[in-house]
């Protein structure tokens, strides 16, 4: 009688491309199939996320927005994976995927419009900060706060893509992709989504950002087994663990996952990206209450994904300290400029309070809108109507 003993099973290896000196680790393999322009774009996007995060974190501290979440340590996971996907792939995110939005074409103005809840926010100022609504511009579903609900949504979206592919066999196929943390992978929705995706052969890529922490809970208290990749295996899903600070590894793994997911009519693939949440969980968190500052610094010194890519580029003469200084300076100025511009924009039209609860405006909502209009007209000094697009006319 043989019981399977987890402790005796060899842990899943981590796929990487670069060594600790940012060179290709395996001399027998070809260098990554990417152009210098691609690498430069990725690096710039990673730095941009970093700069925007720092500015917006501070802006929250100054009371300019209610909440913010930064992604330091995970820039390569987001940029590298997004770079390997197609524009028509459908994405469902958690909340720490700013880089995915940026890489897929969200601009500084789009981020700032949402964060300041102005009239240019496609979400009409309804969702909390960093919960971007990107379906129209970058094919990313509106971000939800309810952790892990996005995972079955991706399986469902993948099913829709599969049905579409059956009807239009000549069109190139697309996949659904979902991002989530290793903490969210403890939710029932994760297991349900993987199981159904496997059973129904849906072309979906599950990307776990294993960053070591769920707010204050370290992975050692989140699970005892060999991380998240091993769970994919138990659902019959091809899975891989990837060094999430090595952007080339992330890019290659995601690209291959996409190819596999579309193969033979569709199937799910799981990627576990190993990284570290350098930052606090959110603006509502001070992580030094539960972890050592030195641990964070030590990790950064060894594994910072920006640093690793920068060394790679410097070795290839693509980048130097002067370019670095110049790019950081202009990006910082651009972020600040967009933030101030966004703050000075009008707020969304007042009708947005009532619209979109249902596809059609209900009688009750119409009545309430009329009541609000009359109240505002009666006591104009009590309301800052002019901050809103169209002023009082925004209620008609």
């Amino acid at each position, binding site marked *: 009688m043989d019981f399977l003993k987890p402790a005796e099973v060899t842990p899943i290896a981590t796929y990487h491309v670069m060594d600790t000196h940012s060179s290709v680790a395996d001399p027998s393999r070809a260098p990554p199939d990417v152009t210098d322009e691609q690498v430069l774009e990725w690096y710039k996007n990673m730095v941009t996320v970093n700069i925007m995060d720092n500015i917006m974190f501070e802006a929250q501290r100054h009371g300019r927005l209610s909440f913010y979440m930064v992604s330091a340590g995970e820039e390569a996971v987001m940029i590298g994976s997004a770079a390997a996907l197609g524009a028509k792939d459908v994405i469902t995110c958690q909340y720490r995927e700013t880089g995915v939005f940026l890489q897929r074409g969200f601009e500084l103005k789009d981020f700032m419009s949402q964060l300041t809840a102005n009239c240019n926010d496609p979400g009409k100022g*309804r*969702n909390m900060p960093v919960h971007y609504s990107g379906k129209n511009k970058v094919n990313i579903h509106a971000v939800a706060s309810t952790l892990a609900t996005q995972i*079955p*949504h991706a399986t469902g979206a993948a099913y829709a893509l599969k049905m579409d592919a059956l009807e239009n066999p000549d069109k190139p196929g697309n996949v659904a992709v979902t991002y989530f943390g290793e903490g969210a992978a403890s939710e029932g929705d994760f297991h349900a989504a993987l199981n*159904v995706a496997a059973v129904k052969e849906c072309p979906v890529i599950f990307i776990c950002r294993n960053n070591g922490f769920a707010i204050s809970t370290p992975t050692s208290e989140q699970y005892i087994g060999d991380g998240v990749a091993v769970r994919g295996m138990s659902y019959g899903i091809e899975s891989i663990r990837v060094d999430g600070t090595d952007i080339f590894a992330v890019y290659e793994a995601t690209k291959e996952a996409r190819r596999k997911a579309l193969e033979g009519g569709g199937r799910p693939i799981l990627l576990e990206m190993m990284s570290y949440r350098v930052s606090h969980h959110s603006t509502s968190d001070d992580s030094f209450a539960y972890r050592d500052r030195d641990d964070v610094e030590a990790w950064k010194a060894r594994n910072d994904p920006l640093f690793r890519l920068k060394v790679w580029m410097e070795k290839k003469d693509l980048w130097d300290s002067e370019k670095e200084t110049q790019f950081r300076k202009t990006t910082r100025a651009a972020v600040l400029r967009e933030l101030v511009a966004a703050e000075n924009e009008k707020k969304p039209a007042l009708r947005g309070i009532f619209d979109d609860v249902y596809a059609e405006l209900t009688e*009750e909502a119409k009545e309430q809108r009329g009541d609000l209009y009359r109240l505002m007209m009666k006591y104009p000094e009590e309301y800052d109507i002019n901050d809103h697009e169209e002023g009082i006319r925004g209620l008609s």
Partner: protein
Amino acid sequence: MVAPRVFRPAARLLSSRLSTPLRPAFTQTACAPSILRSRGYASESAGGVKEVTVRDALNEALAEELEANQKTFILGEEVAQYNGAYKVTRGLLDRFGPKRVIDTPITEAGFCGIAVGAALAGLHPICEFMTFNFAMQAIDQIINSAAKTHYMSGGIQPCNITFRGPNGFAAGVAAQHSQDYSAWYGSIPGLKVVSPWSSEDAKGLLKAAIRDPNPVVVLENELMYGQAFPMSEAAQKSDFVLPIGKAKIERPGKDLTIVSVSRCVGQSLTAATELKQKYGVDAEVINLRSIKPLDVETIIASLKKTGRLMIVESGYPMYGVASEIMALSMEYGFDYLTAPAARVTGAEVPTPYAQGLEEMAFPQIDTIVNQAAKILRL
């Protein structure tokens, strides 16, 4: 098959009992023939009226909508191979194939989340729960994802989805199979909620739900599935749809307004007949059909006519459908009431299994008649 979840398909336990009416609760439901004969149908005189069970009416609605719209598909536990735990999806797998009639693993949160994801990606899923009691496992997806995303995305992500399945108590299956969720879903902005009583209700409301661009919860009733109702010629056609948000006056009357929903409509009609026979009073019975939006106009117009209001439903008494209608009657009809409004609801206990106890936990004909007599001071 390993570890069968014996409690899941309560219908399997009940199927034999349903055909032989062992319990007074069954025989008294809905359709004492005399009442049904007195109901008016638009095209009844045309002679095309047919007896159809609620189950078959739902099945017809599903088949017609699956036929009419390629974006629709139905998924849930046992819906395909097994023809549905309650046989509502009978024959659909054979007709529409496994891509559109999908058996799922036992994971309410999972298949509901997947249905919501498919809806957000542009399909029009119909998500069957074996019972709404089990939809509790998926209520986060129904409320936080389906009901709210259209608003939170800024109106760019509609969620055309239908959640359906039996709701409320059945017979002898205890508290975890016997809850009425009308009030739960009825309190959520972004959801529409309908609850049919008759076969026409069932077909017309389910079709409307599937066509509606919003997420709609269709609360059916297991005890009604096997009940046959006459169906008008118009209702037998594939273009038959009922408007969501409109109640139906099932029995006109001048002395008392009884507002009811789902299975309790049948009980209220029987009670109204009894009230006429016993006391000579005419109760008006309103079949809500729609929990949300609620047809306040019809209720208030009736209240103005009769001056007396009673609500009969099988949910818990507090914060319920009846409570809401009573609150609305204060807001819009207070001056017309000649007696305090009253409600007859389920009891404030988790539903017991034992037959006698279960009966005592829900409105019965005599409860309704006695409460009406009290309001009317008879």
